[in-house]
Each structure stands twice: as C-alpha cells, then as structure tokens.
C-alpha cells in the first residue's frame, strides 16, 4: 500500500473540507464590505450632475436669481484659464453648481455652432477630471433678448436662436 503513494480517503476528504472553509472565510469577509459596485457609483454621480443642471434650468425666478439659460446668456465669451480665472465670467453658474453638488468637482464646457463650425469653449475649470468622471449635457436656447438683458457678449441677430450645449464633466474627489 505504502509503495503506491496513494491519497488516503479520509485525508482527501479532510483537505477538501479545509479548502472549502478557507475559500468561504475569505469570500465572506471581503465581498460583503464592498458597499456598492462601480456601475452604481457612476450612475449615482451622473444622476446628481444631471439633476443639478435640471434644477438650475427649471428654478423659478423668485427662488433663484438666474436660471441656467440666463447664466449662459450673460457670458462674456472669454474662456476660462486655469488656475488664474477658473470660472471666467460665469460666477452665478459656478455658485449654483457648487451649492448643489457638494464634494464633487466639475468642469463646464459650452458647445455651439458658429459659421458652421462647432466651437467647444471651456468656461469653468476646477482641475483635470479623475478616471471615474462622468459627462452630462443640457441644452439651452439663447435669443437676442435674453443676451442683452443679461449683458452677455453673444452676437445674435434680432430673430436668431442659438442652441448651446452645456457640458458638465463631474467627478468625486
């Protein structure tokens, strides 16, 4: 029997039980700790960022000083530079977003067509986005009237409508 170097039946059973218990202990102690999976965290961040833009957009005049369209209409067309002028001319937009998105950093770009060219301008820069950043978009429509009311520098004709994409890149710190 000894010459054949076989595994004894009871030893095999014992080894199997030991291996199973080890794997069980490890899996029980680590897997439960993960609070939420990656996807859910991304969805959460995207949802909050989207809500912030929606809330800025629909806030009635009496409750918020300026809504999203008015903030954008008042832009003086100068891009943000980091770190000297991170919010360019859009302080109201920045104040609103930073109040609604605590502990979240964000950049804002504006995208619009001018003479058949798509312009993408950086208007709020808070840093370079982390790996888990999400992008949400909201469209606003500007008219000559809203622009002149807000003292912006958009050069629009009397009957011109300008659709601007507000692109918010948000990430957790």
């Amino acid at each position: 029997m000894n010459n054949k170097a076989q595994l004894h039946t009871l030893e095999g059973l014992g080894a199997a039980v030991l291996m199973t218990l080890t794997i069980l202990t490890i899996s029980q102690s680590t897997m439960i700790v993960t609070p939420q999976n990656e996807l859910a965290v991304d969805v959460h961040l995207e949802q909050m960022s989207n809500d912030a833009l929606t809330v800025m957009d629909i806030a009635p005049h009496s409750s918020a000083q300026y809504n999203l369209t008015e903030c954008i209409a008042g832009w003086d067309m100068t891009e943000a530079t980091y770190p000297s002028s991170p919010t360019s001319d859009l302080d109201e937009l920045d104040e609103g977003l930073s109040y609604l998105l605590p502990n979240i950093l964000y950049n804002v770009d504006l995208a619009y067509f001018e003479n058949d060219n798509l312009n993408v301008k950086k208007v709020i820069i808070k840093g370079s986005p982390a790996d888990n950043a999400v992008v949400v978009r909201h469209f606003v429509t500007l008219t000559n009237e809203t622009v002149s009311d807000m003292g912006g520098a958009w050069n629009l004709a009397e009957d011109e409508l300008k659709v601007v994409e507000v692109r918010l890149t948000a990430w957790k710190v």
Partner: protein
Amino acid sequence: MIDEKGQIAVDFLLGISLFLIALTFTVQFIPGMFISGSAEESSLDYTAYRTATVLVEDTGWWGNSTSSGTNWEDHPNNIMRIGLAVDDDTSSKLTNSPNLISKNKTEQLMLVNESVLIEKLGIYNNVDGTLFSYGYNISITQNDEPLLLNNTTAVWGESAPDNKDIAKITRVVLIEKGKIASFEGYDLTSQTASKATINITGPFEDNITIQISDLNCSYTDSAFLNATLDGTLLNRTSNYTVHKMDGWTASKYSGNLSNSDILRLNFDHDLFNASTEHRLDLRFRNVTLPTPGPPFARFNDHSSTHYEPTYMTVEVWQ
C-alpha cells in the same frame, strides 16, 4: 485476468466520486463565487434608482371607473401611481417640471399606508409569485437635516442597517416652501423716508418670504433696522428672520447693506391669520425708496411659489 479487461478500478471509482461530491459541495455552499456580478445586489440598485426616479420625475396617477388624474393626493383611496413632481395640468400624464416637488403630494405621502407605499413604489422582490418587501429609507434633507413639513420630518421607512448591502441614490430636487414675493428697490412703496410699506392679505398655510434686491443704499451705513406689522414691532427671531442671499446660499443678516445685496425676510404665517389686509412696515437706515405711496405695493400681487433646493435620498436593502 481482470486487469487485462481495462475495467474501472474500485479505488478510482471511489476517488472520482469523492472529488465530485467535494466539488458539488463547494459550488452549492458558495454560490457567489461562480456567478459573476451577483444578481441580488444589482436588482437592489435598480430598485433604488427606479424608486427615486418615479418619485422625482413622475406626478403620480389616480383613477376609478369614472375619472382619473394626476392629483392623487386628493384621492388617497384610488391611488394608482405615487409621484411627487408638481403638475399644472392634472388630466395629462406628463409633467413639464421634473425635479420640482409638490408640498401637498409630499404631505399626502406621509399619510399613505406603508403597504400601499411599498406596493405602489415597487420596493419588493418577486420570487416565484411571492412578494418579499425590501427594507427602505426615503428622506428629504436640507442642510443635512430632515425637512420638516407640518411638524413631521420627511422620512419614510426605517434607518439603514450597518451590516447589509445598501443601494443608495441621491437626487437634487426643488421643494415648495410657501410663497415668496420679489421686490426690487424701486418697486417698494414708502410714505416716510427709509420706510418701505407692503400690504399683505392673509391667511397663509406656510411661512411667507419677501425678497428685496437692488436697493438704493446711498450711504456706507445703510442698513435694515426692523419690521412693524399693523403698528406692532415684530421680534426678529420668533416672528421673522432676515438673511442675505448669495446665489442659493443664505447667511444671517447683520451689519450694513450695499446696492448689490439681496435681503430675504421670512415671516411666520401665524402673523397673518385674519383674512384682512395687514400693513407691514420695513424700516431701513439711509436707503432711498423712490416710489411714494399710498397705494402701497401688495405682497399678494407679487407672490409666487417659493422653491428651495433639497436632496432626496432613497436607500434600499434586502
């Protein structure tokens, strides 16, 4: 003789059976190891996401055999869907105002039976036709504290346990907070210098807010001094509060005023119980009010619904 026939040895048979038994036991015992991305957890995520979306973006719906509409808060016995979004057209199932939360609907949701709430919001798991309700916590918070509506906190469900997987979704919403009237400096009427007079007709269900911007503060020591209602001096803490606004951020007002400041005065609704016209005098120091009165500006002509940003959090667990 037997060896030459190539039959399975009893030793081998025993070994392979033991191995299979051990393998089966392992698979049975630790199911999570062999299923990638456990289905249980993600269904919790979907439930939390769905519940939050339905509450924030839907107006809800009620119906019986004869009629239906989105004003389910008026028909609590015929609720078909629960949603909190404000709606101006109760016959249309759509709303133009997602993320705007109706106060009446929120207050009615506090009165809804828990089993109805779980069923209508779908906070349960359906296993072979048997319903297991999830644990849940839904709360509306402002400045990290639960919102108070009619002296009840806007919290549903139980507090989340520490030792379980919890799916959580937070939504940014605007909630109705009574009435607000916005005045600019030249809208305010005055009979005597530096004293603005506003007529207010009660009663109100909620506290009312007066917002004043673009005041002409001609001196460095311009300031807001006090408020008088029908000749009685009001108490700054118990009757009303004064805040300076900077975007959404409110800070307690003290010191001097400048032209760019926005003042927000919040008055206790109990002051205006009688349904008569009240006269509110706001006394300033060194502020020029160009429009003479009477007639005085009326709160009720300028007022609209006041919304404030809050967070709605939905947590769901097994």
